[in-house]
């Protein structure tokens, strides 16, 4: 196979670097946004997954953890546990509350845990304890890092001061973070008593669906979801706010990448028009000339995509100190998709220049 295109790409370094930089910027922008989205999704879902609850029960109209509507009395606990298939029920209270920091107020998603909570406590603890005592709080690490707080420090939540008992991980939702305190403390802050936002149920193996049906038959005032459905609901909640912006930005990024590749490849073809005529005169068909242009474009795309991913890695290392609430999660498949996307973008960007190269008449090689 003729490799002339790769020679052009690698030996015309300035053009190659500029093209690769355009692709790198597009890949960086797109994968960064995907990474932020995946990070926020993980923060939202990791807590729910970590609880191990088989069924989530909330007030009717509630369909995910972030948009809880209404409360259920805690005294409903024995009623829930009476339902066939239910092993245990654990009530939690949830509310968005402002935390006072030196540079202003930030909103936390406060989860009030019952004494002896087994399901609802945070699973990933970076420092301290997972279960707070009365007057204590467990903060997400991004929030704690941003505020410069550590275990043992004090933080003001809704005008009450709490001692920090632990720092949790995978509890960052980007726009807010989870905070865990005792349900009694949260009730006191909210001015309610004996109320829960959700009940987390453990059920006998394989009975989640059946329990959900029984719960819905038992009361019209509650909504019940098996774990998979509840996870999906929360995922949709995050996605509904994020994906349109992500899709628009990714489209813009990829369009810019394609435009840069198209422009740089186009100028390269115009500049080397004589070479394409020569290739034709030497026996190169349209396919060979098409391939030469594509090779230049694809080489820049691969280099740009890899450079973009390396830059992203560097940014990912800097983010915890610069913007701790922005958590990047870039799985290998996302990186692979970015490289593939860059290749497709570059191929699209090179179509017009390749068309020009193939249309150059070999006869031009004889003209002076």
């Amino acid at each position, binding site marked *: *196979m003729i490799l002339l295109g790769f020679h052009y790409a690698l030996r015309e370094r300035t053009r190659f670097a500029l093209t690769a930089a355009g692709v790198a910027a597009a890949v960086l922008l797109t994968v960064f946004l995907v990474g932020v989205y995946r990070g926020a999704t993980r923060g939202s879902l990791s807590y729910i997954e970590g609880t191990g609850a088989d069924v989530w029960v909330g007030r009717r109209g509630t369909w995910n953890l972030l948009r809880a509507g209404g409360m259920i009395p805690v005294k409903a606990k024995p009623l829930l546990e009476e339902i066939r298939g239910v092993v245990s029920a654990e009530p939690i209270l949830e509310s968005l509350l402002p935390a006072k920091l030196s540079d202003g107020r930030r909103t936390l998603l406060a989860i009030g845990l019952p004494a002896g909570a087994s399901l609802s406590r945070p699973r990933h603890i970076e420092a301290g304890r997972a279960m707070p005592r009365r007057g204590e709080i467990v903060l997400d690490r991004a929030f704690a890092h941003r505020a410069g707080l550590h275990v043992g420090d004090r933080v003001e939540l809704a005008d009450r001061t709490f001692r920090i008992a632990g720092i949790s991980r995978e509890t960052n939702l980007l726009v807010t973070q989870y905070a865990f305190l005792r349900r009694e403390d949260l009730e006191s802050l909210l001015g309610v008593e004996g109320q829960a936002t959700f009940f987390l149920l453990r059920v006998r193996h394989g009975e989640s669906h059946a329990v959900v049906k029984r719960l819905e038959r038992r009361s019209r005032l509650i909504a019940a979801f098996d774990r998979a459905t509840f996870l999906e609901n929360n995922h949709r909640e995050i996605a509904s706010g994020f994906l349109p912006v992500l899709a628009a930005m990714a489209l813009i990024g990829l369009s810019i990448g394609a435009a840069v590749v198209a422009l740089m490849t186009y100028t390269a073809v115009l500049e080397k028009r004589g070479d394409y005529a020569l290739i034709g005169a030497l*026996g190169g068909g349209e396919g060979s000339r098409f391939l030469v242009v594509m090779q230049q474009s694809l080489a820049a795309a691969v280099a740009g995509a890899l450079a973009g991913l390396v830059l992203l890695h560097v940014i990912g290392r800097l983010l915890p100190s610069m913007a701790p609430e922005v958590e990047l999660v870039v799985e290998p498949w996302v990186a692979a998709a970015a490289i593939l996307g860059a290749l497709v973008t570059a191929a699209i960007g090179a179509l017009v220049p390749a068309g020009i190269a193939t249309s150059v008449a070999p006869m031009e090689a004889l003209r002076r």
Partner: protein
Amino acid sequence: MSACTLRFEGVGKVYAGAVSCRALHDVSLEVGCGTFNVIQGPSGSGKTTLLAIAGGLERPTTGRVWLSEREITLLPARQLLELRRAELAFVFQDFKLIDILTAEENVALPLELRGVRARSARERSRAMLDRLGLGCRISRRPRELSGGEKQRVAIARALVTEPRLILADEPTANLDWETGSEVVELLRGATRERGATAIVVSHDSRLALLADHQIGIVDGALHRNGSNGLPGDSPGRMKT
């Protein structure tokens, strides 16, 4: 007609446009195998057009052209390309080397375009450059070579595919006399050693002295006075 004979029969070429331009008119010509032929004529006389039609780069407006017993004027583009790959090679006035490639890579290029594996193409390229006295220049880029060396690389590129017909457009125009003579000798050598046919377009009157046959062309028509005393049965018909 032998395998590497080139024959033009009543060939004309008109370039259409706002003002149409007649480049060739009723050219009939037969060039024999293993001969070194020089086409001479003033600028704009149709020399390059004749060369382009012989090489399958242009199609005549009228007339027919045969190469190796095949009428190339009837061939579809794909088969014409195959024919160019199999039997033809070009040498250009301004060398037309690709400036980012080394001498070795430039010579290997037509082989790679013919699907020869890169390693094999490089080996054949090195061998050809070595034969042409450029063994120590294989990794030089064109800008690092003298004019004579560039043209020798271009000739190596033409010869490496072992063509039966070599078409050269003013190959000595940018060279001094001595270097030009070396280049001509290389082309003549190719015709002698390989039995290839060479058609060289040139302004250089001294080159005509080295030719087996001289073909004159004026205003798109063959000119008897330009022939090297060779038989022609009419002003527009010539046999070499």
